[in-house]
């Protein structure tokens, strides 16, 4: 019984991290520069060094990215209406 519980926990964690890997690919391509100005003109070494953190904390980054996108969209709509 205990062994099964440990197996299940490991599988859940593995799935979460797998989702993190997929997220990180998109995030490195598009999201990074969107959420933090400090990343403009940053080095390749910096991008590599934050990969493990992106895989683990992807939920936090995704939330931040979506919030900023929603804000930008609202701003764009407002400007359209003004025109």
């Amino acid at each position, binding site marked *: 019984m205990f*062994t099964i519980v*440990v197996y299940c926990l490991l599988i859940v964690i593995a799935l979460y991290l797998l989702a993190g890997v997929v997220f990180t690919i998109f995030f490195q391509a598009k999201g990074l520069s969107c959420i933090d100005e*400090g*990343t403009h003109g940053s*080095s390749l070494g910096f991008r590599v060094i*934050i990969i493990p953190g992106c895989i683990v904390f992807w939920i936090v980054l995704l939330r*931040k990215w979506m919030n900023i996108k929603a804000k930008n969209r609202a701003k764009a709509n407002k400007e359209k209406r003004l025109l």
Partner: protein
Amino acid sequence: MGTSYSAVGWNRQKRIYDQVIAGCCVLYLVLFVLITVTVNPDCTFETVLLRSTSTLAVFILHVILSIGPLTRLNKKFLPLLYNRRHLGVTMFLLSAVHAVFGILQFHSLGNVNPLVSLFTSNTHYGSIADFPFQSLGFFAFVIFLLMAITSHDFWLHNLTPKTWKTLHMFVYLAYFLVVMHVMLGVIQYETNPVFVVIMISGAFILITLHLIAGMAEVKKDKKAYRPEEEGFVQVCDVRDVEESRAKIFCIAEERIAVYRHENKIYAIHNVCKHQGGPLGEGKILDGCITCPWHGYQYLPHNGQSPPPFTEKVSTYKVKITGNTIWLKPTPDTAGTTQQGAAVPAE
């Protein structure tokens, strides 16, 4: 500060610091292997690797945890504080070698997944003499891993400083887990009590240091200030503040740094916008108050970082009567320009 990120913020001093750390680690590991081979020639390679990396990691962990209280007790230890992050990552890498080899050696030969085996090969969780001590090591390792992968400033900004700080406070839990991992492990495979004695003395030193530094701090914070006058309180004599240096005062639970710069007195909030470093423990370099932790800078008269940076801290009004400095402990908005108070000629 506000500029773009690089992988590792190295400069000349930090390079020297890192080279010293690396040199000491290599020296320790080589000596450990040589001594083990001469004293106990039957020892396997895996055992030497497991023991040399784990003991070094535990030693570095003690150094890391002592740096905070030591610098609070004596400024001479400040250079150690500078770059503590790299010590942490070094400790993590050493404990990773130990953890991976531990799992490989004890759990990867059966047909059960090694990580499952780590928790289920021994299930005497109710026993002290047979406790599965490796699981405690595993949880400590997970904490070190999370701290190491979030050690870059990018994470401080994007997880928010509060979350980041909370995460890094878990180092104390990890330390406790390591102590139990070693103590419960040693009961099982070692008759020599030397490990236990070293661990207990280490913990004793750490706790004592934290208590002494904590008590010194509380005493400073409890100091009552002289009667007020138009909201100003009397803090100290101008001759007590050296040129380009500060004294820190804790008034109504806020810490304020009172700086002397080109014979004028200025006061700013003591907490650095980067990671909360104590600005009053730094000094003025190139006309800017420079944080002792990682070198963020602020102009003394308005608490603003010089352009292109955008950080700001609160400033306070000061005045001087005779030789006494008076301070108004209600902060002005971050970045407010203050006239400061001229120090009277001797």
